[in-house]
């Protein structure tokens, strides 16, 4: 069993504190994605697990063993780097087998493990080429092959897809997920791309400024964001946030005059006069006749469309509520002219209320 745990892990660079006491327990075979904007400490955290950065304070364990003072080679991990980090002077075959050669495995075992990895990743044709003769996607696959050859306890991925073009990225994403389903190892994966996080993760760890903001399954983070940062980071387009004020116990008055009822989840948890941010996703604001028919509380709004982004199956409509730019979605789209006024329905059950001062979600 290869659990990975981090307890109160801290990283200092000089006097700058890059990671502030992180606690995290990763289960055996789990695919965990560390995601966050650049500079949030996710890569540093990964590199501390790998042993490439010293751990300033706290404890990291892999498979029940404290690894703080072990060099990377004694942690039984393998890592896939953003720039692939292939050995330029070795062929694909040599790259794949290198760790086993270093471990003094016998030749037959090396050949077998290398062929196996090549089979899994479809590298058979490329075995005698040098990295310089490979495309980006091929290099990435070699890097992954190099990682699986060793049968490590844990795979670490450091933004492995960010150097690939969009199409290849989607393709490789699927391959990584397949790889995980096939080998079943624990994977810790760092990315700044929330789509990668959503699609790959069993559990997402969202980080900001060296802190963990929220840990949960992709749908938990999507449906129940802890604060406005999570709400706007996860999901595309980001959640709409409109400033407002609670009036009485049942109504939120959005600045600019529009009023909406308090969503059921927040009822009773807010007080009269409290400043809040009212949040909802584009999927929950749809023009009448172009929405999903769902039961539940709804509010009717008449809004002027300022910009459209047709995507085929849906069109993203830009509009304004109380002076804030807001995005809505139109299913089965018809052409919409900028300036057109449409009737929208807001699914109140799916709306969120955040405290304006703390940015924390108000939810029962």
């Amino acid at each position: 069993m290869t659990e990975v745990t981090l307890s109160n892990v801290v990283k200092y660079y000089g006097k700058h504190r890059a990671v502030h006491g992180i606690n995290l327990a990763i289960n055996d075979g789990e695919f965990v994605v560390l995601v966050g904007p650049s500079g949030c400490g996710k890569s540093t955290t990964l590199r501390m697990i790998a042993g490439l950065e010293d751990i300033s304070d706290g404890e990291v364990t892999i498979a029940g063993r404290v690894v703080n003072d072990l060099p990377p080679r004694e942690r039984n991990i393998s890592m896939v780097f953003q720039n692939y980090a292939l050995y330029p002077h070795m062929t694909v075959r040599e790259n794949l087998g290198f760790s086993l050669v270093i471990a003094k495995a016998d030749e037959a075992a090396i050949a077998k493990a290398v062929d196996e990895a090549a089979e899994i990743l479809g590298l058979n044709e490329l075995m005698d080429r040098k990295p310089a003769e490979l495309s980006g996607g091929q290099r990435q696959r070699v890097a992954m092959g190099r990682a699986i050859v060793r049968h490590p306890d844990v795979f670490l991925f450091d933004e492995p897809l960010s150097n690939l073009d969009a199409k290849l990225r989607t393709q490789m994403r699927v391959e990584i997920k397949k790889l995980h389903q096939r080998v079943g190892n624990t994977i810790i994966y760092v990315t700044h791309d929330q789509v990668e996080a959503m699609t790959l993760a069993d559990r997402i760890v969202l980080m900001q400024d060296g802190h963990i903001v929220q840990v949960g399954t992709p749908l938990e983070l999507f449906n129940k964001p802890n604060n406005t940062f999570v709400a706007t980071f996860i999901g595309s387009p980001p959640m709409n946030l409109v400033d407002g004020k609670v009036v009485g116990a049942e109504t939120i008055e959005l600045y600019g005059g529009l009023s909406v009822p308090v969503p059921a989840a927040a009822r009773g948890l807010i007080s009269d006069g409290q400043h809040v941010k009212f949040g909802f996703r584009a999927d929950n604001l749809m023009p009448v006749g172009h929405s999903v028919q769902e039961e539940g509380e709804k509010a009717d709004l008449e809004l002027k469309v300022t910009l459209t982004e047709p995507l085929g199956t849906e069109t993203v409509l830009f509009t304004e509520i109380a002076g804030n730019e807001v995005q809505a979605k139109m299913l089965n789209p018809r052409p919409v002219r900028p300036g057109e006024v449409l009737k929208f329905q807001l699914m109140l059950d799916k709306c969120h209320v955040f405290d304006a001062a703390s940015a924390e979600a108000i939810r029962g």
Partner: protein
Amino acid sequence: MTRRRLPEWFVLLLPAFIVIAAVVLIPLIFSLYSSFTPYKLTRPSTLWKWVGTFNYEKILSDAKFWSAFGRTVLFLTIVLNLELLLGLGIALMMNKVTWGQRTLRTILMFPMMFSPILVGFQFKFIFNDNIGLVNNVLQSLGSDAALPWLVDGKLAMFSIIFAEIWMSTSVFAILILAGLFAMPRDPLEAAKVDGCTAWQTFRHITLPFLMPFIYIAMTIRSLDVARAYDIVQIMTGGGPARRTELLWTLMSRTGYVDARMGLANAMGYVSIILSILFTVYFFRKLSAARGQIGMAG
């Protein structure tokens, strides 16, 4: 009245042709020609006497020439290898320095800033058997032997090699350091994760990457050392009794002391083969090493 005019391109290139002819072509042809004559500086008329390959035949059967030739090859081999090892060591250590590295790099270049003649004088003093620094230190440490540093054949070679290495190791150090700076960090980290110890990382990842830089330094230095003259001339003059005679001290003695310029030129042409061989060898190695690490060959 039409004058035939030379084509424009020719006129434009003419100055370059003239300069190259004056400084390269004519001396080259002249020296090649004179190597087939018994040309003596003291008797200019000998320049017009053609003796065919007589000089070359004489050289090929001349034990003094071949011992100077062999000594030069030995000198080259020892100096290049030691400079490589020391330079590599210095570069690796410099690469670890985090504070004051620029200053250190400048200091490292100091020996190269001296004229080789001065370096020769400096070491001539240091190794002097009578008043020299080394023997004085040895004596004050209780040894009563005055070692004949520049007189004994082996010690004299050692002293010259020491001076040469002192002066030029930084060529290797600087070029290898440049290689280390250019080295991508990722493969080093990948090697750590793949289970390499520090030595294995160096052996399997760092060194292959540095090889092109090493061969560039080798090429430059082999040409440099093959024409070693100044330090040797100052420190021992090729002596005593030709025990430190290298090709260039032999040639200059033959040409200017004995005034047998025809013979000296013939020696020059034979010994150039040495430099060409070394250069070709290192260039081959260089492009192979570049191909290895995926640089355009």
